[in-house]
């Protein structure tokens, strides 16, 4: 009696399961289709894109990709993005860990005020500062240098980094630090030899969402960088798309070159990335 009941409920729950899977397959295809179309079109000429938009390319000719890479300076843009992103992430991790350590482990005058100031950064939108930031950067002549991006990206990443790393540090037992102190370690030694290694998982999470934010940031890059040789991928692609506004095959190639590595990175690291992005947004 009980067994037939459970079998029946198993069968009953399997039928919607198949329906769910089918509908998900359809949804996934709809979601993915624009990207498939993009890659397929990157191997086509303009006339083929116009006449047979859905057809697969007649041959996989990487010539347009090579051309897009060369004439579009995509390598240069990618390098700029890599330099700006790596520098910002490194600064966020180092400065963020230092600040989180100070807030978490020391009691000092001004602690509450400084913590409050940093917490403001979690609430304030980009719009609240970018106008005056741009006049400030113009006055100091750091627009059209990489600093014009590294400094604000670091500053934008710090509040959340400090907040998350402090949560990690707060969870560590006091005895750990007291023991290090008894062993004769000074403040900086405790930081290097104890805090940084213990923070590794937290630092990895912070690194992921900070890296994605810097890699994809557009508005400040648009305002501060006019020099084409310093442009990052978002603004570089925009410049490219206005230069080759009617060479669609070439534009699709550029889009594919930028997109595919990110999809591969995502497939390989999807667990860490999902964790990083959701932690980064659930502030």
């Amino acid at each position, binding site marked *: 009696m009980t067994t037939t009941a459970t079998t029946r*409920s198993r069968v009953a*729950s399997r039928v919607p*399961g198949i329906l*769910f899977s089918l509908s*998900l397959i359809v*949804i*996934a295809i709809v*979601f*993915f289709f*624009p*990207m498939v179309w993009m890659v397929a079109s990157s191997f086509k000429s303009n006339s083929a*894109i116009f006449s047979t*938009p859905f057809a697969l390319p007649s041959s996989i000719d990487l010539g347009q990709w090579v051309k897009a890479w060369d004439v579009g300076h995509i390598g240069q843009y990618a390098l700029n993005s890599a330099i700006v992103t790596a520098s910002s992430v490194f600064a966020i991790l180092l*400065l*963020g860990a*230092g*600040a989180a350590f*100070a*807030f978490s482990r*020391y009691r*000092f005058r001004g602690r509450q005020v*400084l913590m409050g*100031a*940093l917490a403001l*950064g979690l*609430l*304030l*939108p*980009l*719009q*609240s*500062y970018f*106008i*005056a930031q741009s*006049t*400030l950067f113009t006055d100091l002549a750091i627009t059209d240098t990489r600093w014009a991006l590294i*400094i604000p990206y*670091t*500053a*934008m990443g*710090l509040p959340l980094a400090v907040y998350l790393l402090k949560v990690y540090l707060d969870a560590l037992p006091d005895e750990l630090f007291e023991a290090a102190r008894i062993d004769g370690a000074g*403040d900086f030694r405790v*930081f290097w030899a104890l805090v940084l290694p213990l923070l590794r998982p937290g630092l990895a999470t912070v690194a992921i969402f900070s890296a994605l934010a810097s890699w994809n940031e*557009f508005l400040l890059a648009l*305002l501060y960088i006019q020099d084409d040789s310093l442009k990052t*991928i*978002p*603004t570089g692609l*925009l410049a490219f*798309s206005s230069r080759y506004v009617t060479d669609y095959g070439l*534009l699709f190639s550029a*889009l594919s070159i*930028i997109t595919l590595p*990110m*999809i591969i990175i*995502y497939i390989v690291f*999807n667990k860490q990335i999902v964790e990083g*992005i959701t932690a980064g*947004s*659930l502030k």
Partner: protein
Amino acid sequence: MKATRRATPYLFLGPAMLVFGFAILWPVFMTFVYSFTEWNGYGPMTFVGVENYAKAIGDALFRDSFAHVIFYIAVTLVLEVLVGLCLAGLVSAIRRGSLWFRVAIFTPVMLPMVVVAVLWKFVYNADFGLLNAALKGLGLESLQKVWLGDTNTALLAICVVSGWVFAGFYMTIFYAAFNQVPSEIVEAARLDGAGEWQIFRRVKVPMIRNAITVSVLLCVTGGFQGFDLFYVMTNGGPYGATEIPTTYLVKSVFSFGNVGYGSAMAVILTAIVVVVGLIFARVSGSRAERDLS
């Protein structure tokens, strides 16, 4: 822990506070100051009191930009949060192979918005775009449109792109939340004869209320800050149909040199985002307290 030197905490804190203060706090303060002036960015600065704020409130274009962004937020709440919730429900209801769906649907979140915007400009292209080609293939030529050039469809077209990107993002958040729901509760409901839809609607969704509140907050405050898609796809056009506060204030400041007026609009926008954020924090905070007691 006691510091070995009194200066230690400040040494650890100094660099972070310096960068943050220099690049964010000081500019926030100065934007506020500029909002009471008339200034083109380099010439003399005149103090004009609250004139810029009065002008902003009376500016029909600025008001329209708010109407557009509120429409955008309302539609994306459905296309991103609600669709994300349903997708998460579907994904968590199947037992195997969910990883590939999650990968496929989440991928757009990884891409720079500019890449997404340029790609979708092609999807919407009137001559060879995917959308018009699909309509033609289905024999629905009468529905073909210049999607981004038509004042009736441009804003909605951008909302759809936003949904395409972020539905996967919210799905991921909700999927993680669903996984926290104790399986005994779900099983108990199933033994009581509840169907998948009832389990979803009456058991799982109520149990992830917090994640939903946070997502709505993210969608609303993020919506007010939208820029990339709008700038690349239409830059406010056609005829201002997709003008949102940020594209409008970027134009005012960086094309027309109205730093003072742009700053006043920025302050208004900031106030709205911060107030919405604080209200949500209050609401979800008091709800958490109620849940605990």
